[in-house]
């Protein structure tokens, strides 16, 4: 019976579903039919595969070929299934053993010359393959390192269709080595490096690494001196402290201040004090970046928390994810377990800002498109920066800002209430005077020092919150905070006083208590004392209203 089966995976968001590719060769009009909801790119596979098979020195069967992709109801997109279809046709034509191809998952795009090309989203696809019981996957060489991140999988890295077919047939190539390289999953490849990825939407990639512990510091870091450090933020002790609290408790942070005060500088330094991702989180983050196609070449696992700074002209789809063809993750998901920095936040379109409410609430983004609903994880720390007014001039005696108070209010009011409600920390940065610069030299601490405190604080919080659905202080809802985790009795005298004087709202009190917990965690105290609550109050009152 000239029917062969191969397997591949269709990705919906970062979840994979096994797709069965059936190739059938029968008598009839010579040609090839592709059925099973293919999109345009997948329909083009017909021509690519035909050229690839012919150019690989194999014989294209001159009969009627029907290729079915099932489940047929699931929309399938892209060039992802090329290899699976080509191998299926070869197997149906009895050019490769049918039994051998049914054991393997195939991912890869074919060039007209038979080259095997890398595709996006290999990591989640391989994970889905392993979950479905497949022990072996075949990918392009460039995808091998990523595929090998999944424990318990055997990765076959092939450079071309010929190599793939030879490996399946078990024929050695002329130089005696195997047709395709094999790797065991779960071990790092010799040439793969653990490297951080810092990226803006423009696509510029710099691979500066945080140097936090010995494991990483032995890596080649080309320019340690140029790596950003929190100590550079001289003259802004409150802002540095806020960044530390933000990193330790996962609190969302809003920065207000005139141009040049250091808002962007501060935001860019938050990742340098965040702890490295643990393996589970790193795999989640890498899977999202893999689907988005933003993994740098040769980088296997992203262990640094990502930092995303989309431009303020970004669309809703760019921020939360979407797209008409393949559903791609947006900045909010790419910043999963890291920092999403919205510079010039009031300049963002209102619908973009409001679209962030769902991920802030649920920790994930749901994108619904025809036939599919994709879910991307999106647990990020939001950092907003804003000028006090639209003219963005420093207030000064001459030629300074002349915006009316109404214009300033309108500008700052563009960030909607529900979004501000989720923000625990609001900081105002003022231009730094010379005296303050001199005084602050005593207090500036390096990122490494602060990062150590942050790691310890996070461990304390995680230990305290064990048995709850939360890991970070920022995630505890206000009602639960009141009921289960009040600060020490009598420690809120100053907060209470501020409440009576109208300096702080009842909602603000909850935020102060939440931040006080993080400050207590940083200081190693089991429960917030009066000192912690007052320090939190100081951060809260540090914004002129």
């Amino acid at each position, binding site marked *: 019976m000239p029917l062969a089966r191969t397997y591949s995976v269709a990705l919906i968001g970062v979840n994979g579903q096994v797709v069965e590719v059936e190739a059938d060769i029968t008598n009839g009009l010579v040609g090839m039919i592709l059925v099973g909801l293919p999109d345009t790119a997948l329909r083009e596979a017909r021509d690519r595969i035909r050229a690839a098979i012919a150019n690989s020195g194999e014989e294209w069967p001159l009969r009627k070929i029907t290729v079915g992709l099932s489940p047929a109801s699931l929309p399938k997109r892209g060039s992802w299934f090329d290899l699976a279809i080509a191998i299926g046709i070869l197997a149906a034509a009895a050019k490769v053993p049918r039994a051998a191809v049914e054991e393997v998952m195939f991912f890869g795009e074919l060039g007209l010359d038979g080259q095997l090309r890398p595709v996006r989203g290999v990591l989640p696809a391989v994970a889905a393959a392993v979950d479905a019981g497949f022990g072996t996957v075949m990918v392009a060489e460039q995808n091998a390192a990523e595929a090998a991140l999944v424990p318990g999988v055997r990765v076959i890295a092939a450079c071309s269709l010929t190599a793939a077919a030879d490996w399946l047939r078990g024929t050695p190539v002329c130089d005696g080595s195997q047709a395709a390289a094999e790797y065991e999953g779960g071990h790092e490849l010799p040439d793969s490096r653990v490297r951080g990825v810092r990226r803006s939407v423009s696509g510029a990639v710099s691979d500066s690494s945080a140097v936090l512990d010995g494991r990483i510091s032995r890596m080649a870091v080309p320019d340690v001196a140029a790596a950003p450090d929190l100590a550079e933020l001289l003259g802004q002790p409150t802002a540095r402290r806020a960044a530390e609290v933000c990193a330790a408790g996962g609190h969302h942070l809003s920065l207000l201040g005139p141009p040049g005060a250091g808002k962007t500088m501060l935001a860019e330094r938050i990742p340098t004090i965040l702890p490295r991702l643990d393996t589970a989180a790193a795999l989640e983050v890498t899977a999202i970046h893999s689907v988005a196609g933003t993994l740098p070449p040769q980088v296997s696992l992203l262990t640094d928390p990502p930092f995303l700074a989309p431009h303020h002209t970004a669309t809703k789809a760019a921020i939360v994810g979407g797209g008409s063809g393949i559903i791609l993750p947006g900045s909010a998901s790419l910043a999963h377990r890291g920092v999403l920095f919205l510079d010039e936040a009031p300049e963002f379109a209102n619908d973009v800002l409001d679209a962030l409410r769902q991920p802030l609430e649920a920790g994930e983004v749901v994108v619904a498109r025809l036939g599919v609903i994709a879910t991307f994880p999106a647990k990020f720390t939001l950092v907003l920066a804003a000028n006090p007014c639209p003219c963005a001039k420093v207030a000064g005696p001459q030629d300074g800002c002349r915006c009316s108070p109404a214009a300033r209010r309108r500008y700052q009011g563009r960030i909607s209430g529900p979004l501000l409600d989720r923000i625990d920390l609001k900081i105002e940065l003022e231009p730094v005077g010379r005296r303050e610069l001199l005084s602050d030299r005593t207090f500036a601490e390096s990122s490494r020092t602060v990062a150590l405190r942050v790691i310890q604080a996070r461990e304390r919080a995680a230990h305290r919150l064990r048995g709850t659905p939360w890991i970070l202080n920022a995630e505890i809802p206000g009602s639960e905070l009141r009921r289960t985790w009040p600060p020490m009795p009598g420690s809120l005298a100053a907060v209470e006083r*501020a409440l009576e004087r109208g300096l702080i709202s009842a909602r603000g009190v909850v935020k102060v208590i939440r931040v006080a917990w993080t400050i207590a965690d940083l200081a190693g105290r089991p429960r917030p004392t009066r000192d912690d609550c007052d*320090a939190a109050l100081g951060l809260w009152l540090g914004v002129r209203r």
Partner: protein
Amino acid sequence: MSGARVSRVPLDEEKLARAALTYLAEPADPALGALLAICSPAEVLAAIKADMLPGTGPGCGDTPASRAALHRALSRWRTRLPSLPDDEEIAGARRGGIRLTCPGDAEWPCALDQLAQARPYALWLRGNADLRFACSRSVSMVGSRAATGYGGHVAGEMAADLGERGWTVVSGGAYGIDAAAHRGALAAEAVTIAVLACGVDYPYPAGHADLFAAIAAQGLVVSEWPPGRHPARMRFLVRNRVIAALGCGTVIVEAGERSGALNTARHAADLGKPLMAVPGPVTSVQSAGCHRIIREWGANCVTRAADIIELLSPLGISDALAPVGGPDRAWRPDPGADRAPSRDDLDPDSARVLDALPARGGAGTSTIAVEAGVDLDTVLRCLGRLAGHGFIERCDRGWRLRRS
């Protein structure tokens, strides 16, 4: 038969009779009120069933005119006899968390006895709180259904503040001020009482079904009408006297010139209870009624919960202003934190930081820390404490002393 007789009927039968009367007669029926003053409820019920007067007594049927009035009343009540559920059914109406309280019960609030002959025959209750206890410190808060944002805000804040200080809020079940008051009290996790003009199981307005459920969980839903009875226009006015009677005083938050809240205010004034009104903008139609009762009826002008408590607290109770503390209220001030602290009360670090602030203009955080000779953690916490207590404030260049 003599007039002033002591009832020898067992309590259960009496309660059952009172429950039946709530089915037969509209509340505050003067004829029934007069009859209940001299006969037991069971006798009245038997008389209605038998269509004959329960004897004579002072003030009851001793003149031909009043006898005729009583006969008319009897025939009025008898029209509902066919639809009166039997005893088992009445007892069964108490299912679903609904209970009945009658005069003389432990839960019956004495405040209702001030209504004299207009006293409710019995009250149907739904909820977890104890009515009598809740009404020992209570404020009736009513106002316009078409409340403005201002009115809703003030009602909610006041109710929450009252609740945090251990006072119960009594109100109706309407949209606007009533709902805002209940929500405020619920937010403070305090007891709140909704007095309805229909059965306690009948959510009117329907949009408040969830609110009533929340009130029943934490406070009480109260009605003079038996379960299942629908609201009618006149019933709201009759109901208002119960709202006025259950509170130690009545606050009108927002009321137009012809608002039903003024009817409640009238009842409160008639009962001799303190009447209070929250002022609004003089141009606001929604506050016109409040301003009128301040001007014409001498209502007290109140602007915050403490004003209300001061008016309603018996003399000599000094802690009336202090909120009740509980394990979940850890950020309520400890006694003594109420007064403004002076410079002398400050801890040494805070005093040093305060001294380090320049007399004029502002200074940055690090500058202050260096000047005071303390570390960054200390200065941040002291600045928070000083700002909270109002010694300092934020300025362009950091922090500065606050001119008091």
